[in-house]
Structure formats: structure tokens, C-alpha cells
């Protein structure tokens, strides 16, 4: 699954119905009959299993016809309900190969106004391997959509675990994180870990907010504008949190201009995420007690932001 994560849910479902194969959504347990049964036998089975139709298969499980509840009602009506189905069943059967996407199944169900499609082994086979209904598709979609949310949840829980583990390390040890360029899915992960880390140290909420925002903006800068880099966070002897963000380039041609609120080089993609208002560096400067930035078109950008923890937040 490689959905572009900034899209709406509807788009996600749209993508999924192309990605999910009939094979993954269908029921493998197929209730079927052979052609030498009567309509009444089928009617009893339909009632018992609460289904609306059954495929008719030969002894090699190849499909030869289908009998629906409508056919049974007609048989009652016309008085041949105790006759064998072989002379009456419809032999024109709409099927779908198992390797097709569920979107094709949805189209076929709609186009022919049927409630279920027998699934064949392949396009040039009549052998039935399953049966698919709209509710099968819906169930599968829900499971997949749910698992995407759970995957993100698991990843975040792991992040929390990381910050817990960091607590055990000595406070004076700098924390170092790699930040990939152009990796929107993980953007903000470092800031989140750092925030949890300082929360666990019992730092003042207002200061944690400032640290989190500075980290986040610096991380987003590396992620959105550079080829990747790293962040180092340490607490120095003067009770300052020092945040270093370093990237491998391409560098900022005019740092003074980049510091101007509202100045931006953001692309449409970045703006679609809600960023790119030209407030990144100004925000970092605003929230830090001390702020330095150096950039070279040869070696990339180095940013240093210092936030004082204040007397009551002293870390031993």
C-alpha cells in the first residue's frame, strides 16, 4: 500500500478498491448445486442459508448455470417447482476472475443488477473458487482501512517506547536522530519523541511546547526542503536545551530573506499539507532564547536553537 497520506478517506477507499483483489475479499465457501436437483431443494437451501442465489456446477466445479430466488419464485408461480432445474436455469452466468480488482466486481454487480458473482480461477477458466457479494467487499475494505489506522497507532506507541528508553540514558548524553528528506509519513516523529522525553522529565508545559515546536519546525525544514540530515538535542551545563538541526543541502541562498516572516519557497505539495506559510524559521526564532543559523550552498544548513529550562526546571 503506497497511498499518498495527505489525501481524504474517500480517495483512500478509491485507491483500495483498485488494490484489493477479488481473491482477498471473496468467500471461499461456496454453496452450490449440481444440475440434477429440483427448484424445491434449492429453495430449502436458500431459506436455510439465508442467501439469494446459488451457482450450479458440474462435477469438476466448472460453472454451468445459476439459480436465484427470483427463478424459484417463478417456478412456484408457473407450477414447476418440483421439476429439475436443468431445463429452466439460466446458463448465461456473469462471473469474475479471482485476480481482478474489487472495483471490477462492483461494476459488474451494478451493470447486471445481480447480488453475487461466482469467482472463477482465471479469465479463461470456468472453475469456481469462491463467490463475492457487495458485503464481502465492504467487509474487506473495512478490515484494510482499520489496519492502516492500527499500523500508524502501533508505530506511535513504539515512538513512546523510544522516549521511555531514552529516559534511562543519562540526561547529559545528547540525543541524536536521523531525519530523511521528502519523508512526509514520518515527519514530526522526532519532535514527538522529544516532547514525550521532556514531559517525562517533568519540565514546565510551556517550555515543553516551545521545545516541541522548535524541534517540529526544524524537522519539517529538513524533511520538506533538504536532502536529509540529522538532529541533535542536548541539555548543557547552563540548564539549556540545545537543538542542532543539520542538513546535507542544498542550502539557503539568502538566509536573511528566509528569516523574513512570510517568505517561502514551498511547493504545491508542501502547501497541500498545510505548511509553506513562510513561518518556519521565524517561528523557531520566536520560540528560542537564542538562535543561530548558517547556510552554505556547498555543505547545507546548520541551525542551532537554545531554550532555557529556567531555575525550577533544573535537571540533575
Amino acid at each position: 500500500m503506497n497511498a499518498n497520506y495527505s489525501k481524504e478517506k474517500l480517495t483512500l477507499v478509491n485507491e483500495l478498491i483498485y488494490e484489493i483483489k477479488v481473491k482477498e475479499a471473496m468467500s471461499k465457501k461456496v454453496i452450490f448445486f449440481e444440475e440434477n436437483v429440483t427448484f424445491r431443494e434449492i429453495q430449502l437451501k436458500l431459506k436455510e442459508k439465508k442467501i439469494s442465489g446459488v451457482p450450479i456446477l458440474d462435477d469438476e466445479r466448472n460453472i454451468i448455470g445459476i439459480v436465484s430466488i427470483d427463478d424459484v419464485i417463478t417456478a412456484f408461480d408457473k407450477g414447476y417447482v418440483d421439476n429439475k432445474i436443468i431445463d429452466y436455469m439460466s446458463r448465461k452466468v456473469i462471473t469474475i476472475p479471482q485476480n481482478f480488482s474489487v472495483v471490477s466486481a462492483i461494476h459488474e454487480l451494478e451493470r447486471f443488477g445481480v447480488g453475487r458473482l461466482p469467482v472463477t480461477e482465471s479469465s479463461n477458466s470456468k472453475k469456481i473458487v469462491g463467490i463475492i457479494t457487495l458485503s464481502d467487499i465492504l467487509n474487506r475494505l473495512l478490515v484494510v482501512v482499520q489496519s492502516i489506522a492500527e499500523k500508524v497507532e502501533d508505530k506511535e506507541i513504539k515512538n513512546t517506547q523510544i522516549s521511555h528508553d531514552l529516559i534511562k540514558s543519562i540526561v547529559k548524553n545528547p540525543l541524536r536522530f536521523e531525519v530523511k528528506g521528502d519523508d512526509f509519513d514520518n515527519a514530526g516523529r522526532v519532535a514527538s519523541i522529544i516532547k514525550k522525553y521532556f514531559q517525562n522529565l517533568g519540565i514546565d508545559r510551556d517550555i515543553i511546547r516551545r521545545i516541541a515546536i522548535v524541534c517540529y519546525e526544524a524537522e519539517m525544514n529538513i524533511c520538506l526542503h533538504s536532502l536529509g540530515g540529522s538532529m541533535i538535542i542536548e541539555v548543557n551545563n547552563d540548564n539549556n536545551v540545545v537543538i542542532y538541526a543539520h542538513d546535507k543541502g542544498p542550502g539557503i541562498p539568502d538566509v536573511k530573506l528566509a528569516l523574513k516572516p512570510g517568505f517561502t519557497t514551498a511547493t504545491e505539495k508542501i502547501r497541500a499539507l498545510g505548511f509553506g506559510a513562510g513561518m518556519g524559521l521565524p517561528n523557531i526564532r520566536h520560540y528560542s532564547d537564542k538562535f543561530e543559523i548558517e547556510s552554505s550552498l556547498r555543505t547545507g544548513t546548520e541551525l542551532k536553537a537554545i531554550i532555557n529550562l529556567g531555575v525550577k526546571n533544573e535537571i540533575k
Partner: protein
Amino acid sequence: MSFKKGIIMKVKDLIRVLDAEVLCGEDFLDQEITDFDASDLLSDILAYSKDDYVLLTGLTSSQVVRTAELTGAITIVFVRGKLPSQEAIGLAKSHYIPLLKTDNLMFTSCRKIIEELIKEEKNK
């Protein structure tokens, strides 16, 4: 928008005021709101928001949840009937941030919240 101490609104009150649907975080609706922010620009949210606030937004990416989490939001309300991505919902769940959805427009949502706050103050 900040309001005076003593005027209290809870996250669950928003469901009534905005006729909102709870998308996740049903167990965390009892929190007290101290501030609101309405924005479609993450940079602005980062620049101006305060702890324990509710964010009203039309953005639906997981980055908006990340931004909310880092700035101390206790709930996100998606306005004009927008649905967040599954990634956004997963992220919100893991940080115990309830997500609400309302069909009201951004302006209407803000107006309704302000009217409710004024009503509450008069009743005091």
C-alpha cells in the same frame, strides 16, 4: 480566542453545540477546554496556539494531528464535513486526541461556539 477563567466548556459540549460526530477518542471527551484555535495553516497553529486548546480545521492530513499533538491540543474538530485520513485517525488514537467532525462551515462553527460561551456567561 481565550476566555476568562471560570467559564468552562468541555469537549463533549462541542458535540451538542456543533452537532458533531465523534470519529475517535470517545473516552476522552470529559476534558475541559481553555482555548480555541481555528486555522487551515499549520504554521499559524504552531505560532499562536496554547495548551489544552481545541483546534478547528479544514485540513485532514496526519500532519494536522501531529501539529495538534505537539502544540498541546486536546481535540480536533474537522469542519465543513471533511473526513480525516485513516493515518490521521491512527495518530490521534495513539495520542488520545478525540477527533470530531461537523458539517458546519468554519465561520459557522466559530460563531456557534462563541454564542454558547456568551450564553454560559449570562447564565452564571
